[in-house]
């Protein structure tokens, strides 16, 4: 059920975004018909609309989903780490993210320079959360957010890569 955690370590998602955790919930992220696997490369145009994020877990438990970009604006100089793309809270277990409450609207990846990682982190909530949206998307901190809302360690993480699509050159 639980996903394999090693790709997250090698991809430095564990370390730069979240701490080491043991996956306890299975989360599938699908842009379009296909589920994405950790570390795959997606085009920004294919990820403009929010993905279908299905989670397992009990119906009575509530979950929070956060999507951030730890490589903004450039992977070699991530001065805006992490750039916030999405927050959904109060997702009932066994459903998908559309059943939760959007705290921060989904914003599709638009990497300006380099190949960015986009990390979707799922936390289990202890109670119902009334989270306010942070003032800015830039310099968001997943760990701090989790600490502020008593979310603890993540229960599932999926990440993918995205790179700016080359502009159409016409001569």
């Amino acid at each position, binding site marked *: 059920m639980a*996903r394999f955690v090693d790709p997250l370590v*090698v991809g430095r998602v564990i370390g730069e975004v979240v701490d080491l955790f043991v996956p306890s919930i299975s989360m599938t992220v699908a842009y379009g018909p296909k589920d994405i*696997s950790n*570390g795959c490369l997606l085009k920004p145009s294919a990820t403009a609309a929010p993905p279908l994020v299905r989670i397992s877990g009990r119906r009575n438990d509530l979950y929070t989903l956060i999507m951030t970009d730890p490589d903004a604006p450039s992977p070699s100089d991530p001065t805006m780490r992490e750039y916030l793309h999405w927050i959904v809270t109060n997702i009932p277990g066994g459903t998908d993210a559309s059943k939760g409450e959007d705290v921060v609207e989904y914003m599709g990846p638009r990497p300006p320079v380099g190949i960015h990682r986009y990390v979707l982190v799922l936390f289990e909530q202890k109670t119902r959360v009334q989270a306010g949206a942070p003032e800015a998307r830039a310099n968001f901190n997943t760990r701090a957010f989790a600490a502020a809302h008593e979310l603890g360690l993540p229960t599932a993480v999926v990440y993918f890569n995205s790179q700016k699509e080359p502009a159409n050159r016409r001569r």
Partner: protein
Amino acid sequence: MDLKDGERRGAAAAGPGPLSRQGSIYSLTFDEFQTTLGGMGGGGLGKDFGSMNMDELLRSIWTAEESQAMASASASAPASASSSSAAAGDAAAAALQRQGSLTLPRTLSVKTVDEVWRDFVRDAPPGAAGAGGAEPQPARQPTLGEMTLEEFLVRAGVVRDNPAAAAVAAAAAVPAQPVAPQPIQAVNNGGASIFFGNFGGASNDAGASAMAFAPVGIGDHQAMGNGLMPGVPVMASAAVAVSPIDTAVAQLDSLGKGNGDLSSPMAPVPYPFEGVIRGRRSGAGVEKVVERRQRRMIKNRESAARSRARKQAYTMELEAEVQKLKEQNAELQKKQQRTHCETNLLLRCIVDDNMCEVYHGDAESPDHLILQCPLAHQFWEKIGIMPQRNATSSSLWELLRTARVPPNSYLTFLLLCDWLFWKHQHDIVSGKCLPFSTFCCYHAKKKLGCRDAAYRGMSKQLWRPGRNDGIAEKPGPGSHQQSICTKEALPAENIDWSLLIHLSKREKQHIYSSTENVNDRAPMGTRYPNGDGYEMSFIPMMGMGMGMAIA
């Protein structure tokens, strides 16, 4: 003089002529040189070498060289860049002027390379060479060693890109201070009095590369330990160390000429050198350029590391996925093989062929047994469920529900129908009845009907504990399973079966209604075996389905 010079390089052992060295800074020992420089304070340089940056060092050497040798800057670049023998042959006129730059200090030329190297290592700071020891200039070495690891790596990396260049670096590193700037001087004799004033042609390449090697020669002890020393083992004196420089310069020269422009990918000059040359032209300090180059290279390396990590992470993910699917597949195949169809029996050598015994002609696989057999198909259609012709047993749970079946227990209903049909097939094969699909529909009705009373009691007991309508026996207090086991219609040990029936209590009604519609004839005079081994043998087969239905 020049003849002597060339001869010394060729023989690699001859003692240097004392007179020829008098005017050159290269005849000074390092200490002398340093004090000389400090004394005349070339451009306000009161500091020692360790605290200078490369630019300052070179500039000061240049001024020192100029003031000491009084050589005019008229020697042509090709002559100075050509190999030593050629220089000996054709540049007699330039010899006197250049001798200052090409002669070597006595201290170096009378030693073997091994000796020089040993001295060098002994003098090196412990951090860089790992050998502390008697240090003649304790103040200087640590400051030279202040070069950060990053700078060191970058510079070493530059050198490693070009084998010829590496050899030069190794050679230049032996007589640390005096020889390193030498190629620059030789090359720039052809130019104006400032460094790299001339950017056209090959002398540029050579100058740029020599420029880049120089820092390595000073700070890079490890470059020599890098397998480069064995490459020049015959250097009996430091004088010979000059010739690789010359050949390297000549090589750069010819290639540079052949390509015509510096940015050509064929040029042996690694990419970052371009930046040096351009930066120099803009008049910015060497340090700034070197720094920028270093930053770019470090970034490049980081990016490469990231790229590798990305690839590795993705590969790991896919491998894990493959492993998971393999296990799942093996599991499913094992389950598939548990079904006692003819195909699996044939695999275990229990039967001779795997023909379906109801409709001969097709192989009896689990899929065939449950859904694809014409009889099975007919049965499902009569109930009102239309399976596809090629439906597989795993798609049993995806069969479309008819409106008459309540959605909650639909899976249980399917399972029950499946079970009845399977029993009927068993009867056909064992010769108890003829194939007739309404038969099992009838029995579905009959069996469930005759047990209805008993189950009504049981279900009431289950759902409304404490109430007994008198039809069923009074169940014992405690688990309902116990009460089921006492009923005569059920085998005592068959708890799964009782659960199945219990869960399907709502489907009973439906089976009535659905069988009412079909042409419901009496069975062919055979008694249906009740509660015997058939049921028992069926349970393990549908075990996995049961699990799904109940969960």
